[in-house]
């Protein structure tokens, strides 16, 4: 995948991450959305396939996936310095505001208007998260479509089964991911596409 923009400077990288951290109200949904928009769509430093690859690594890592993703993107764009700058940009401004809000929250939590606003904001985060999921799903749908109907159906069933397993069977996330990895090995191994890792792939989109 060809990078279309030059690598960011340190200050630029910090500003981008700070903007993502500060703008991402409503939790992880909007954060992922903003990261996709900034690094894939606006600056074209990453492709969506690369992004998915990095994201999968984060899923396999303990802790907050988005912080791990910050580490990986930071490393890719600026090495060790990139990691430090990206983490600082992502976490410090937003953590500071979280502290401030924690202090303010105690004062206003019982006001009816505040509760009403929350009742509007919370479902909106659900809608935004659905777009994030769609962004993740598109390359997989395309791949399945190319391989034929059977693989498209298997992909769809596996996705829905994972959702249902968490919602209704209350299975732990880790078990669901391991199960999907196992089923993926069974169904997709022979059909494996070339690695998503950009160093191995010179071809343009």
């Amino acid at each position, binding site marked *: 995948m060809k990078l279309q923009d030059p690598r960011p400077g340190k200050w630029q990288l910090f500003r981008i991450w700070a903007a993502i951290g*500060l703008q991402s*109200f*409503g*939790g992880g*949904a*909007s954060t992922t959305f903003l990261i996709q928009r900034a690094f894939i*769509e606006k600056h074209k430093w990453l492709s969506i396939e690369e992004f998915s*690859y990095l994201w*999968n690594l984060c*899923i*396999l890592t*303990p*802790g*907050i996936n*988005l*912080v*791990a993703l910050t*580490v*990986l993107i930071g*490393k890719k764009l600026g090495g060790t310095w990139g990691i430090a700058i990206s983490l600082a940009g*992502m976490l410090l401004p*937003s*953590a500071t505001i*979280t*502290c401030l*809000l*924690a202090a303010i*929250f105690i004062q206003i939590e019982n006001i009816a*208007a505040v509760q009403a*606003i*929350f*009742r*509007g*904001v*919370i*479902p*909106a*985060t*659900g*809608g*935004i998260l*659905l777009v*994030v999921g769609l962004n*993740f*799903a598109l390359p997989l749908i395309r*791949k399945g479509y190319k391989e034929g109907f059977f693989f498209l159906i298997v992909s769809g069933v596996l*996705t829905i089964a*994972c*959702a*249902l397993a968490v*919602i209704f069977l209350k299975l732990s*996330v880790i078990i*669901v*991911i391991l199960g*999907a990895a*196992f089923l993926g090995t*069974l*169904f997709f191994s022979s059909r494996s596409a070339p*690695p998503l*890792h950009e160093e191995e792939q010179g071809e343009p989109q």
Partner: protein
Amino acid sequence: MIDPFIYFLLFLKASLFSTGGFSNLPSLHQDLIASGWAKEADFGHSIAIGQISPGPNGLWVISLGYLTYGLPGALLALIAITLPALLVLVVSAGYARIEHQSWVQGAMRGVSLAVVGLLLAVVWTILHQPGVDWKGTLIAGGAFGLALSRKVNILIILGLAGLAGYLLYR
């Protein structure tokens, strides 16, 4: 009296044995209630603050740190959620060695599909919280459409949703 070192270790442990922003909750809940360092209400408050404050969902832990132990608590919580994330470098290096095996490709594709499914599950959970009625579902649909168009800033979407909530539920 809070022992800062033990307090930090409890947060670190919760973070190390979790995936995603909220899965460290049960562990922290158990430990901090047992030690008497947090009240039941602190958890509800922290999660609510996490919803409205900027940054990843996982930063709710920072408000938990603040509510239970002030600024030192917030700082210790921040460190405790940052350190495990660096393990991704180890995962990344290990994965680079095996990624060319065809079973790894298949497995990762399964994981990618699971991620989509898990996101759907979170959407479902959000839309089935108490307080989300059919009007809330409409707000979710509107936010989905606006976000899908890629033309509207996320803050504007959430601002509109907050305004809608204010007008509908006040």
